[in-house]
């Protein structure tokens, strides 16, 4: 009898608990937009990390001074109502009168200075972002005016000032409670307030009535962490979420055919490349592989590799990608998309015969090319990398290489290969198309552990790009820069990942951003 009672008790506990824990469904009339985030989501302190997909969410909650326009052209005001370059090295930002943080703390020039200085002079384990190197000083002109001074003319001030770490947090509150408590109970400055936070699981935001530019249209935006794409699809079909990205290939037709759901494709601004090792003294390489001489040190071998890849097929294997030759995305304000993103040029670039000639020039007999160690994570940023690597390895073997492919899970890949600089011949690199930052990776003073590249001439072009404010002049420099990039063949670009998004269009209208950011200040309630 006791057992029976115990069983009844257990079942009761389970049912009551389930009822208690499940959050009350939105029974009210509030509109609620739920986005399925693949996770992980990192802390709410926006200056403490560089996790792009967390910054998507932070953008709802914090204002920056200015922000990249959704269509990719130019910038829009946020905390700063207007801004201008007073001279080549001084940028002035005009703040909004009466603007505050969510807790009523004034969002004034002093607060802005405090924020930018915090990012520039990190303490503890907060990383130092080279992005913010362009700032020499932040000057409070008056309560609503702040100047950013740069040591030399800087071509990408607007980009850099609106990128990660730009989010404004209330100085007085932060200094009162400290980082740990701030991560638990953050206070923001954006159009949405945080009403529920379950670390790396569920984040519920509610529209803030007092936002300076007016209350946003959708009442509630939820970032729900669902790691599995298949679970995201099921949740979308069940009406539990309103939007997901990265729809698996076989599910696309089915979702497209479902009433009230539409598929939208837009660039993710993430590209997949293979990095070739071009030196033997960076990172842990000299200790890990003391006797090893990578075949990729020979430029002819690298050229053989780049011509061995059928990028169209690799993009198809990935499932949602456009082939590319260089780190230039489809939407690229700095030009050259026509040249390095052109499908025909890329199709011609695939040339196994030429690849074999390069191998011969490197001194290898036909069919007896060197062994290449190819390292890849199972999934990189922007989706499956393992399948792509398997096919890429076969393409390399077709022109005479022998390929030794090692697949690791993402963190093992980061620790054992990427961050430690143990890439042997080729490794996957998944990077965005930030034109403001791309040149830095190839400069002599770059501190990356993965490789060292130092070509004086190329380096000089990169320096010139950074300080050239005139657009035409800069574009001419870019042309030279990309020629170096292609010729050097250290970064063998494969493709640009396309975000395949599925959206509940019955209830919401949303135009995806050109920068691939999943942030939802602009989401609208659909017309009935």
């Amino acid at each position, binding site marked *: 009898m006791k057992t029976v009672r115990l069983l009844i008790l257990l079942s009761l506990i389970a049912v009551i608990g389930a009822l208690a824990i499940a959050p009350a469904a939105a029974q009210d009339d509030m509109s609620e937009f739920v986005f399925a985030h693949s996770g992980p989501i990192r802390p709410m302190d926006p200056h403490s990390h560089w996790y792009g997909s967390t910054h998507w969410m932070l953008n709802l909650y914090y204002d920056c001074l200015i922000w990249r326009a959704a269509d990719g052209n130019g910038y829009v005001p946020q905390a700063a109502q207007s801004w201008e370059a007073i001279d080549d090295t001084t940028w002035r930002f005009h703040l909004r009168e009466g603007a505050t943080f969510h807790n009523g703390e004034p969002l004034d020039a002093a607060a802005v200075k405090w924020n930018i200085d915090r990012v520039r002079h990190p303490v503890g384990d907060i990383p130092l972002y080279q992005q913010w190197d362009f700032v020499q000083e932040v000057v409070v002109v008056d309560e609503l005016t702040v100047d950013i001074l740069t040591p030399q003319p800087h071509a990408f001030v607007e980009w850099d000032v609106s990128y990660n770490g730009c989010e404004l947090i209330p100085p007085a509150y932060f200094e009162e409670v400290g980082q740990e408590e701030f991560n638990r109970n953050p206070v923001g400055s954006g159009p949405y307030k945080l009403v529920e936070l379950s670390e790396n699981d569920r984040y519920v935001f509610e529209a803030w009535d007092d936002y300076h530019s007016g209350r946003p249209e959708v009442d509630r935006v939820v970032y729900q962490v669902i790691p599995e794409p*298949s679970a995201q699809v099921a949740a979308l079909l069940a009406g539990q979420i309103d939007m997901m990205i990265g729809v698996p*290939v*076989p599910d696309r037709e089915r979702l497209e055919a479902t009433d009230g759901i539409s598929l939208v494709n837009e660039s993710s601004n993430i590209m997949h490349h293979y990095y070739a090792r071009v030196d033997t003294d960076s990172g842990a390489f000299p200790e890990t592989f003391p006797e090893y001489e990578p075949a990729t040190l020979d430029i002819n071998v690298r050229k053989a590799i780049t011509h061995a890849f059928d990028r169209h097929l690799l993009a198809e294997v990935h499932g949602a990608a456009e082939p590319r030759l260089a780190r230039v995305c489809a939407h690229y304000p700095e030009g050259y998309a026509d040249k390095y993103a052109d499908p025909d040029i890329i199709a011609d670039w695939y040339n196994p015969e030429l690849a074999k000639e390069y191998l011969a020039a490197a001194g290898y007999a036909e069919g007896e090319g060197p062994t290449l160690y190819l390292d890849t994570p199972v999934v990189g940023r922007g989706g499956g990398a393992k399948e792509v690597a398997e*096919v890429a390895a076969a393409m390399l073997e077709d022109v005479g290489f022998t390929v030794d492919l*090692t697949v*690791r899970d993402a963190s*093992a890949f980061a620790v054992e290969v990427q961050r430690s600089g143990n890439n042997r011949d080729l490794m996957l690199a998944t990077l965005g198309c930030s034109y403001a930052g791309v040149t830095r990776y190839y400069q002599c003073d770059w501190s990356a552990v993965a490789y060292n590249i130092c070509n004086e001439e190329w380096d000089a072009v990169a320096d010139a790009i950074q300080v050239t404010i005139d657009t035409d002049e800069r574009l001419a420099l870019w042309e030279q820069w990309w020629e170096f990039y292609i010729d050097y063949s250290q970064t063998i670009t494969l493709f640009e990942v396309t975000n395949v998004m599925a959206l509940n269009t019955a209830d919401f209208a949303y135009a995806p951003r050109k920068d691939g950011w999943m942030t939802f200040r602009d989401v609208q309630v659909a017309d009935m």
Partner: protein
Amino acid sequence: MESQSNQLSQAATIAERRAETAVLPARRSAPLRILAILAQSPVGFAGSLIVTAVVVLAFIGPVISPHDPLNRNIRARFKPPGFVDESGALYSLGNDQLGRDILSRIIAGSRVSVLVGVVSVLISGTIGVIYGLISGFVGGIVDTVLMRIVDGLLAIPFIILVIAISGVVGAGLSTLILILGFTGWITYARVIRGEVLKVREMEYVIAAYALGQSRRKVMLIHILPNVVSSAIVLAAVQVGVTILAESSLSFLGLGVKPPTVTWGLMLSDGRQYINSAWWMTAFPGIAITITVLGVVFLGDWLRDFLDPNVRGRA
């Protein structure tokens, strides 16, 4: 003097009796005898049939495999079971995300399951038996310390321990086998120790001492053989546990990595596509289930046959 010889003869009788029970049916050649015993138990028969089939598959897989398990065909990916390509070749269980034949991959995957199951159980069994022997035989403070360590390790659920370790040291096939081997022994240590404690008090062991045999000799000649049957029964259970653990780890992305083909990895691949390509998950899972079921049956039968007193605690 008299009492000693008495004890000796008693011990001899016991040993004889044990030998007799081990040879049940009439004396025939060894393989035939085992078959005859198996035929008496449907469960044992089914179990051994399944296990034999999987082992054979692991060895001759490449010969009977309908396709190359690594051969991909992007244009024919996610094809359902029964798909026939333009050349007329049949893909009876469908294709995966790279257009590879599921059936051929299941056949290829049997190799890893057998390898992981057998090798890690050999490692863990050896360690566990030695550990248990020492603990039970030496006794005293050594026993207490060794058993406290076992308690500590047992307090962490096996699969979580294995997940944590492989998350830390990274994995690949050989690392995984080692991890499973070096964590699985805990199960044996306890049981073997218990058995040793029982056997230690038996008359024939006491007799052996009385005859002046060294402790080492007693341990190896008189005690070890008597705990082996328990170890074998446990090992059979552990093979199943290990195969399941491998598939869980590979499924979570912490185990074997491609291009090695394993059932757990196939499940991990298929998981992404369960909304539209159920065959990618269904069939590898069935393969695991049948294999482990075979091992479980065989283990049940072995337990009844060898040592009715041992209860598996997996």
